[in-house]
């Protein structure tokens, strides 16, 4: 499915594992930006918005490299954004059970491939910036996206591909190394 911001109820139809593309506006935010937004308010219209967990390298007004950062750092910092109407979080590595519940019935977590900073940059244009005083990596960059390929990691129905994969991995590990002694996980 090709998604375009602002996002609406169409994201509720998605299921974990679906491949989508996203076009339109996204806002980068990592640790510092989340803390600032929670204190001072969100510097853009959050209704239907998509947040990208990313600390880009920017030269002038050009995106040089903009791969996803580890989303789990924002586990405790995402609820207020979803409450305000944000529909999608984008990053790598997945998020915890708390976020899975916060997404239920209203939004999705989209996974982008870690390290693919050049590929992402090739599909991005800068439109604006907020909180620039936080520095290049921590500022909120308003970025226009052109069909970024993403995987639905967590859907609005409690489906979580990361959790499912790790559950199977643990089972496989116990089976394979059952006969070995040593400290168990």
């Amino acid at each position, binding site marked *: 499915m090709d998604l375009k911001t602002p996002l609406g109820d169409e994201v509720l139809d998605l299921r974990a594992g679906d491949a989508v593309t996203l076009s339109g506006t996204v806002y980068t935010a990592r640790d510092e930006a989340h803390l600032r937004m929670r204190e001072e308010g969100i510097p853009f219209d959050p209704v239907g918005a998509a947040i990208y967990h990313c600390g880009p390298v920017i*030269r002038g007004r050009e995106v040089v490299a903009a791969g996803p950062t580890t989303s789990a750092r924002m586990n405790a910092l995402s609820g207020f954004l979803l409450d305000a109407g944000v529909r999608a979080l984008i990053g790598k590595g997945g998020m915890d059970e708390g976020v899975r519940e916060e997404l239920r019935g209203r939004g999705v977590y989209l996974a982008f*491939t870690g*390290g693919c*900073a*050049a590929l992402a*940059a090739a599909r991005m244009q800068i439109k604006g910036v907020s909180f620039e005083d936080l520095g290049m990596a921590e500022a909120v960059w308003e970025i226009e996206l052109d069909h970024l390929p993403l995987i639905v990691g967590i859907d609005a129905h409690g489906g979580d591909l990361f959790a499912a994969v790790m559950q199977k991995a643990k089972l496989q590990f116990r089976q394979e*190394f059952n006969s*070995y002694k040593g400290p168990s996980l």
Partner: protein
Amino acid sequence: MESVSSGLLEAVTAATASALHEAETSLPPDVNTAIGRALEREEDPTARAQLENIRENIHYAGERGLPLCQDTGVPVIYLTLPPSVPATEALYDALAEGVRQATDSVPLRPNVVDPLTRENTTDNTGGGMPAVHLKPGNELTITVLPKGAGAENCSRIAMLLPSEASEIARFVAETMLLAGGKPCPPVVLGIGIGATFDGAAALAKEALLLPIDEMDPFEEEICDAVNALGIGPMGLGGTTTALAVKIKRGHCHTASLPVAVNVQCWANRRATRTVEVEKWT
């Protein structure tokens, strides 16, 4: 005492900066081959999509001469020196200057901070940075291995008992189970077996310099055990969790069996330059 000529020092600086530029913007042929083979074997559609993105990313980065990943890592340098070149402080400074120049020219993200105050040195050098591993050789070679934090943070070391050699595969697989998608799989696992507590970690990192498009049967066995976990590219499932497992061994105390796992993301970046010493002496 013999000193190093300023011409040679400048050549060392230029070679370091040039090696870093290559390592940050392109992958060596053996790594590209391993990613290509993974794509041929992988059947899971989600995993394939991740590998396709990785391949496209390598293409874009190469075409534009830009970093493969926004985490451009911290500099680790492997240096060999011929008998005619002494390991002076000036030589180390020349390597650091190469890092500074690459930070500005590639450009690299300034990643090096004080461990406690977290103050950023802004040029990717600092106390112990670049990390330099020195060995004698016939030529002056500079190999750079920029190391990102996502994968580095998932690395582990175990002091096993001599009777626990069969636990090695388990320890490595357990390391990936704890890591999941965090280190940006498909990973390359550098394994150091033997030596001492510190020596095993050094061997594990050196193992990442070995060609990854071939494995011996022991490496293959551990790689299969890791891939059987099904973590897959980026932790989204699939059969490609590790591109390769590479092992380096060192002799150790009869009462010891140190095992270290240095986790590396799919971007197993490295590049080597040889400096023609004769030109400057």
